[in-house]
Structure formats: structure tokens, C-alpha cells
């Protein structure tokens, strides 16, 4: 394995390519993953989504060889994972699972230090790395570092899981429903923080979820799998919402896909109206408000246009017509 002494959180990312990957479990007729081909550019988040039995977790575990594939190949930066040393392969891949799986007998700091220590890093370097990571995921290195997992809340535990997975600066991260066990508020906060974090660290991420809303929010690209592990569509969230490949995808995405598309755009992306009648004492939107939330606000206010404020000054007004027009394909900005 290449020595990666460069410092650190900005690190490396690897391209992942699935080539005609198939997984058969012995004694089962239907394949778990069936002839899956897709390539994930370095630094992007690819979400595997689909109903249960669609093989999304299986497909993910083929990458770090927790499950062995039957046919095809998976390449990371052009290297066939089945030809790599299994231990080295896994130490180069951050792995985050829904139940986190922290070591209950180790402190938070020791949990995070696990892989760096296995790699034989010097003590001072491990300590510095642990501090850096705990801060990165929003924990206090002094106060939280010496606590045990059982003393943490669910959200804190998943933060530690994330820090532990990032510890050795792996170019690739696998995340299996990482926020699935959290309450909705904590989940949304961690989703947002992970997206912000990802802007910084730019890992290649495979993210498994069964929740299409989460997929649309987190993914640069979304791979929708159907039962039997067949790839139904692999495209950007915009494309999947605008042009579902078939009935299965359309149904999976849901009848409210127009609203979901609105959730992807911000008020600030629109060309706002210069003036609007009757806009006094209305609730105020910001450029960061999603079109979906803006529409909801407008409907609450009997459909009248609402002002958008930035730095205390009104930048313009949003109307229902403006929002509707944003849904027309030629006006969508990817």
C-alpha cells in the first residue's frame, strides 16, 4: 500500500468501477446482484437505493470483500479488488454501518485510533489525528474522547463511527444506511454535516439507503436497483426525477417527484420578480430556502408572492408561477 503521509483530511479519492458484477448465493435461484456495471468518479457520492431484496447492501459489501463476488470485477483506481490483499484493501476503505458497531470496551479516542494503530502510526501522529477527526465530526476531543460508547447518544455514536471510518484517510468510503437508526431531526443534521464534510474531504462514497428522499439529498449519482439486483437506472438525482427510466423507477421515486425536484433547487437560483403587490408583513424567505419550502410557504399565505431577503435587504419576490416554471426541464439548472 502506498504510504500516505500527506496531511490528511483533504486526502485522496479513488474511482470505483463495477464491471458486469454478479453475486449468486448458493442454493438461491435468483441472483442477489445481477450484471451490475457502473462507474463512480473519484470524489463523488453514489447512492445505491432500492426496495429490500434489491441487493444494495450486497453490492456494497462486494467492494470491501465482506462478500465475495461470483462474476465480473470491481476496480478501485484500476486495481481489481479481488487481487488485492484483503486486509490492506479493507484498511483503505472507510466502513460505516447503521448500528455503528463501536467497540464497547474502548474509549471514543481508542475507537477512532484503531486503524491508524494497526497501520503502525507513531503515537503522536495518532493522537493528533484523533483530535482532528473528532473536531471534524463535531465532537469535543477532550470531553468526548475519553468517554465510552455506551455513554453517547445515537447521533454522537454515529459521529464517532464516521470519524473512525475516516481515521486512516481512506480514498473510498462505504456507508450502509448510516443514518437509518437516528431520529428524523438528528438524521437531517448528520446528513447536512456529512454533505458539508464531504465538500472538504472529497472521498468516493458508496452510500446505501432504502429512502429515496435521502438518496436524492445525498447523491451526486443515484443507482436504483430493483429486486434481483438489476440496475434500473443510474443517473443524477435531477435526471431520475425528471426522466425516470421506466415505470418501476417512476413508482419508486413516487408521485410527488415534482416536489422532490423542487427540494433540490434553492430560491437563490431563480430569477426573482422585482416587485409584488401586497407583500407587506409576509413571512420572509432566504436565498437558501428550497423551492419546495418556498412553495409550501406561498400556499400557506393564500398563494401570494413572498419576499426574499439577503443580508437584511429584499432581493426580490417568489411567486407560484416562478416556482412552476423552475420545473420545466429546459429551465432546470443541474
Amino acid at each position, binding site marked *: 500500500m502506498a504510504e500516505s503521509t500527506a496531511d490528511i483530511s483533504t486526502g485522496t479519492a479513488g474511482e470505483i468501477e463495477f464491471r458486469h458484477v454478479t453475486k449468486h448465493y448458493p442454493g438461491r435461484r435468483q441472483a442477489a446482484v445481477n450484471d451490475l456495471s457502473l462507474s463512480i468518479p473519484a470524489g463523488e457520492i453514489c447512492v445505491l437505493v432500492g426496495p429490500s431484496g434489491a441487493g444494495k447492501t450486497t453490492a456494497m459489501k462486494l467492494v*470491501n470483500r*465482506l462478500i465475495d463476488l461470483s462474476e465480473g470485477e470491481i476496480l478501485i483506481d484500476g486495481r481489481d479488488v479481488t487481487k488485492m490483499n*484483503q*486486509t*490492506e*484493501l*479493507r*484498511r483503505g*476503505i472507510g*466502513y460505516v*454501518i*447503521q*448500528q*455503528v*458497531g*463501536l*467497540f*464497547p*470496551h*474502548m*474509549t471514543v479516542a481508542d475507537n477512532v485510533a*484503531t*486503524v491508524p494503530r*494497526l497501520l503502525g502510526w507513531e503515537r503522536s501522529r495518532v493522537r493528533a489525528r484523533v483530535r482532528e477527526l473528532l473536531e471534524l465530526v463535531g465532537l469535543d476531543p477532550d470531553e468526548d474522547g475519553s468517554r*465510552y460508547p*455506551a*455513554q453517547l447518544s445515537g447521533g454522537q455514536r454515529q459521529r464517532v*463511527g464516521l470519524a*473512525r*471510518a475516516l481515521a486512516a484517510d481512506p480514498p473510498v468510503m*462505504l456507508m450502509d444506511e448510516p443514518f437509518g437508526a437516528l431520529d428524523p431531526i438528528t438524521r437531517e443534521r448528520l446528513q447536512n454535516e456529512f454533505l458539508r464534510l464531504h465538500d472538504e474531504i472529497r472521498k468516493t462514497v458508496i452510500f446505501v439507503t432504502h429512502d429515496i428522499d435521502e438518496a436524492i439529498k445525498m447523491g451526486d449519482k443515484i443507482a436504483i436497483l430493483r429486486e434481483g439486483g438489476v440496475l434500473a437506472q443510474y443517473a443524477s438525482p435531477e435526471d431520475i426525477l425528471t426522466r425516470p427510466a421506466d415505470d418501476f423507477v417512476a413508482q419508486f421515486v413516487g408521485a410527488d417527484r415534482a416536489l422532490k425536484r423542487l427540494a433540490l433547487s434553492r430560491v437563490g437560483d431563480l430569477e426573482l420578480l422585482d416587485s409584488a403587490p401586497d407583500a407587506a408583513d409576509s413571512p420572509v424567505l432566504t436565498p437558501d430556502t428550497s423551492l419546495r419550502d418556498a412553495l409550501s410557504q406561498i400556499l400557506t399565505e393564500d398563494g401570494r408572492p413572498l419576499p426574499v431577503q439577503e443580508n437584511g435587504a429584499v432581493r426580490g419576490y417568489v411567486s407560484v408561477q416562478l416556482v412552476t416554471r423552475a420545473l420545466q426541464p429546459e429551465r432546470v439548472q443541474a
Partner: protein
Amino acid sequence: MIGPVLADSGPVIPNFGRADTCLRENHTFCWSWVKAHWSDTLGPALVQHIVLTLIAIGIGFAISTACALYAHRRGWFERPFSVFSGVLYTIPSLALFQLLVPISGFSTLTVEIALVSYTLLILFRNTLTGLRSVPEETREAARGMGLSDSQILWKVELPLAVPAVIAGLRVAVVTVISLGTVAAFIVDKGLGSPIFHALQSNFTTELIAAGALAVALALAADGLLLLAQRLITPWSRYRRA
């Protein structure tokens, strides 16, 4: 030579050295005897008892840990060893000593074989349960992070098994300390021998003193192990209820 001495000493009652009234009248418990005979009777017996116990626990722990590790890897081994150690556990101790005498004689070996056989079931069961207590997601995360099977064993499974192992040791140690007194039927060692001696001579002080020492030893050993467990596994206090 004898005559004048007898004449000086007054009553013709056997005189146990500098015996006081308590001893002469064989009261239930005489502290003076305990003080007088600590160094020639009770102290050595206590040390012998500790040694007997340590050897039995050491060997029993080694055997049962090895077998538990094997059963952890190869599941089929659990049942036969459980049956074997379970049968040993049910044999009455006196009967087991007598059964072993024709083979290994009136020796410390006989005593240790018997004592060890009583530790196996509890130590094996607890160690195996402890090794299996590692949550599946913890094991999966460990594998996903690139820990090898032996690293998972040493860094995850064994440390997590410690509370269960020590719980087993506590029961085993108390059992062995208590059963060890019966060993005096075979060899003249341990706290069993003053008890045995006292039973034959109807001397309650010695009986009570040796018996109390055995109880105190068991309590102390149990307490020490509990303390050790608290020190070794500070995390176990925070386990989710």
C-alpha cells in the same frame, strides 16, 4: 524428674502448655488458642489452602479457556465438552476423591484432579458465553476495518469476554476453596486438616477457627476478583441497561 514437676503443677489435668481456663474447660471458642497456634497450625494450613486453590484454578482456567476458544471456532465442540464437564460437576466430591485414589493414590495430585474437574463447567461456559457476547455489528465493523480474525479475537472478543470470565472465576474460586476442605480426606493439607482434626477430637475452637478462615478466604478472593474486574474493565459500568 517427673515427680516434682507433677507435684508442683497441682491438678492432674492434661496441661496444653500455657493453657488458660477457656481451653481447660473447652469453651466454644478460645482466641488464645488461635493466637498460640497461628504459626504452627492455622497459618500454614491457610497457605496450603491458597496454594491448592491457585493450582486448581490455574489449571482449570487454562484447560477451560483453551476448550472455550476451540469451541468458539468450532461450534461442534461445545456440546461434548459441556456434557463431559457437566458430568464431572455432578459427581459428589467425596466419591470423586475415592474413585481417584486407586489411580493417583493419597496425593496432592488426586486432590488437584478433583478440584480442577469442578472448575471446568463453570469456567468453560462463562468464557464461551463471554466470547459470544460481542455484538454482531461490532464484529462486522471490525472485519470491515481490516482486522484479521486473530486481531478480532485479541482486541475485541477477549477483552469483551473479561467480565463473563471473571464472573466464572469468582464462582469457581469460591467452589474450590470450599471443596478444598474436603481434600483433607486424601492429604493432610489445607484448612481441611485442622477441621478434620477438630472433628475427631471434639475441639470446637479449631473447628470454628479453620472454618472461619475458609469462609474469609472465599470472601476475600471473591472481593479481590470483583475489584480486579472493576479495574480491568472500566467500560463495563456503562453498559446499556
